[in-house]
Structures are given as structure tokens and as C-alpha cells.
């Protein structure tokens, strides 16, 4: 499957909300979409394109905005596909994918607690790897390492 094939299926349904389908080494492509189109996109990627397996969800902090990415796998094409959307840093939220791919549940919990992305309508958005009440988002660029004293004081009695 090539980026053109992906684009041919997705473009009619999503229109301008599909920003681009770029080539990506070793994958079927990198789909960039508007975050508002998440719920229209996910079922189409799963059912029409056959990417039934969601492998991971992650976030990247680009300081001026954040990026949420999804990696999905198709058993028929034996290929991965990368979905990616940008969210503003002051309102980092996107619709959950766990209704379409149940495996997104834990990956989104992790992305929420480490990168600070809010997933709307997530069934169970709790801390997974960090303690309950932990208020930091460690994978943000503003979270600097090498400041152990300050951190120790803040996290001791969570």
C-alpha cells in the first residue's frame, strides 16, 4: 500500500480535514489530519483500509504545539501506518481512539500522564505509570532533568 492508496480512500470522506498523506520509510505512509476529524478517520482506517491492529499511541512536545501519533498495522498489507495530528499546547485535547481500537486504552492513559494530552470520552483516564496525584508531565520539554532537589520536595507526599 502506498500513500496514494491511503489518500484515495480517506480523502473523499474527510475532505480538507485530511491535511496530507506523506511517504514514510518502511510504512504505508504518514497521515496528517485535523484533530476534529479523529472520529471520522479512525473507523475508516480500521474498516476501509484494514488496519485493525493499533500498536501504540504517543505524544511529542514541540513546545509551540504538541503532536499525537498512532501506529496501526494491517495484517493484509503487512504494513504499518502512522497517523498524526497536531494539538495546541494550551488546549491539548483529542478524541479517544479506544472506542475504535480497545488497545488504545492504556496507551492513551500513558500519553495523558506523561505528555499531558487530554483524551475526550476516554473510559478510564487514570494514572498508570506515575503515582495518583502526580502533577508533573515528565515528557514535556519544560520538565528539566538535573533538578532533583526541587522534585523530591514536591513529590514526597502525593
Amino acid at each position: 500500500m502506498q500513500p496514494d492508496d491511503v489518500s484515495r480512500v480517506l480523502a473523499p470522506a474527510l475532505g480538507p480535514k485530511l491535511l496530507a498523506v506523506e511517504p514514510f520509510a518502511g510504512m504505508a505512509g504518514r497521515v496528517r489530519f485535523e484533530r476534529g476529524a479523529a472520529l471520522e478517520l479512525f473507523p475508516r482506517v480500521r474498516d476501509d483500509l484494514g488496519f485493525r491492529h493499533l500498536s501504540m499511541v504517543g505524544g511529542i512536545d514541540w513546545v509551540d504545539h504538541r503532536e499525537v501519533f498512532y501506529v496501526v498495522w494491517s495484517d493484509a498489507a503487512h504494513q504499518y501506518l502512522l497517523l498524526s495530528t497536531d494539538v495546541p499546547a494550551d488546549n491539548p485535547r483529542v478524541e479517544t481512539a479506544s472506542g475504535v481500537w480497545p488497545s488504545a486504552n492504556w496507551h492513551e492513559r500513558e500519553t495523558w500522564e506523561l505528555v499531558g494530552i487530554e483524551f475526550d470520552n476516554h473510559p478510564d483516564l487514570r494514572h498508570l505509570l506515575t503515582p495518583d496525584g502526580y502533577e508533573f508531565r515528565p515528557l514535556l520539554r519544560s520538565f528539566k532533568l538535573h533538578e532533583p532537589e526541587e522534585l523530591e520536595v514536591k513529590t514526597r507526599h502525593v
Partner: protein
Amino acid sequence: MSEMWINMGPQHPMTHGLWNLRVKIDGEMILDVDPEMGYLHRGIEKISEDRHYNEVITLMDRCCYVAGLAWEHLYIIASEEALHLEAPERALYLRVLCEEFQRLASHLMWYAAFVQDIGLMSPFLYGMRDRDLILDLLQSYTGARMTYEYMRVGGVRSDLPPGFTDRTRKVLDWLNARFVEYDQLCLGSDIFHKRCDGLGILKANDCVAHGVTGPMLRSAGVPRDLRRDRPYAVYDQLEFDIAHADTADVTGRYLVRMEEMRQSLRILRQVVDWLDRHPGPVMADQLPRWLGAPYAPVGNEGYLLKRHYPKGLGFSAVEEPHGEAQAYVVNEGGEHPYRVKFRSPVFANISAARQYLIGYRVADIPPIMGSVDVCVGEVDR
């Protein structure tokens, strides 16, 4: 009977690591489960952002302490893609050698721990004994038994010592004969079948929906293996079969892992034959100096000089002993990765715990979770 929540963990023989399985029970029946992770979270993804590309390899060994080389391999492939580098062919074969050794060591460790969970003591001793043979071989060319730090961006650290391939062939022959005994000990035992048959069933559709991969998926009749479906390194030049079963239960996972070990022996024989016939370099030449860490003196110069490298994104997926591991490396130029994200197969396999635990009894939890092969280091990272 009244319902209640109990904690199995964080220190419980079933967990094989530090995590807590909260179980809601009514008498002996499991009504609900809620795995609690994070006891081993070290922030490996965050620390990686502060380190040179080669320094992250140290963390990869700690990611999964029974399959460190598989995780090194994963990270190395993604980094090389992000940095637009290529390793020489002999290094690729050496990496496959590492990964298959690691698969054997990891599965033997799993075998030892799993059969002990279900009450068979002697297989534990045999499994650990034979795993040591693998660790001896790994030690002879990496210098370490568990935390190897062997692979490098652009190749591997060193070539094999003299006589290594002959020693390897002896070990492979020995293991091949032992696997027959393993099967006799387990499949010939009533205790094994009573505790494993028909337990922890997870059908193929549920596996796919919940992101379950590796031996658990293959035991449900889906012969999916990245080594075959999306070949990396030199797996497309090696002959092997994909082990799979169709019972989707604990026994099925046992059968899949045992067959995988036999296939690993097959791969290793081909790899050592190739290595015997094809001497050559194991590191790419013309690496930037800060990447040639083992050869360049590590002084202030290497650390402080900012060298810019073209930007790039790297993605890799590796069939780790537990399932599909993935790495996503973002290179924004410079010496440190901008962001590293790992996908752990066990993370997804545990997240589906509700699907394969509810409806069974408390005493079934050790064999079922044993068949998942939990490695908490890679779940929490």
C-alpha cells in the same frame, strides 16, 4: 459469599516482577481485575532525551532485563533510520545472532519460571541450567551476562572471539536434545494438563482488538511474526517457520514458545555458518566522531562540540521474545534524540488482562499470567 478486592502483588510469586494485580473475587471466582503498573517506572524515554545516541543503549538493556539485546536491536534500527546510517552486513548477522540467543535465553527463563508456577520443580532447574549455556556464549563476546551494551549505532561493538562458532554449535546440539526432555516433563505430566488446558482463552479477534501480540497471538491461530511479515536485519535471508497453535489457551502458548525455541536453533545454525564464511568489518566507517564512542577517546571535545546531523524520523518494529516491540525516534539534528517512544508488547498483553482472566478461579491466575510472560522492566520503562 461477599465480593471483595484483593491485591496480588506488588510482591507475589505470580508477578515475576514488581506490579500489582488487583482482583475482585467472589469466593474463588474472578469477577474483575485491574493491573496496577508503574512500580518500576524509571523514565527511560525522558532520560533518553538527555543522552547521546549510543548512551541510550545502556538504558535499553535495563528496559527488559531478560531480553536486553532484542531491545538494543530495536532502538538501533530506529536510530540508524533517523540518522540516515547503515551498518555493514556482518553486523546485521551478528545482531540476528544476538536476538535469537536472547529469544532462547528469554524463553528458557520463561519456561523455568512458568513450570515452577504450576508446581513442577525439576524443569525449573533444567531451564535455568540451559539458559546459563546461552549466557556463557553471550558473555564470551559481549563481556556481560545480562546488560550487554553490545550494539552500536552503525554496527556492533566487537567481532566474535576465536572458536565461538564451534562452541555455539555444541550448545545448539545440546539444547536440541534437551527440548525433547522438556516436552516429556511437561506434556507428559497430568499436573501440567490439569493446570493449563483450556485456561486463559483469548481468541484471535480479541487479541487483535486489544493489541495482543507475540506467542499469545500466535497461540490463537494467527501466524503473525514480524521476522517474516516485515523482515528487518537479514531475516529475509534465513529459513524458519512461524510457530503457531490454535487452542488460544495456556497450553497453546507453551507449545508456541517451545516450537519457537526450536526454530531459533535453526536460525542460529544458519547464522553461524554464514559468519564462518564471511569475515568483514562490524562497524560502518565514516561515522561522526561522537557516534564512534568506543573507538574515539571520550573527552570534552567529543561531548561539547555540537555536530549537526540532518533531521530524520526513525521507526522500527522487532519481534521481541514477548511480542512486537516498536521504537519511534525523532532526530531534530544534534547529538541527542529529540524524542524516543517505545512500544512494549507486554504492556499491551497485560492491558488485556480483563479479557483472559475474568471467569476463571484465583488458583488459575499463576498459570495464566505465567503464560503471558511478564517482564515489568519493559512495561514501565
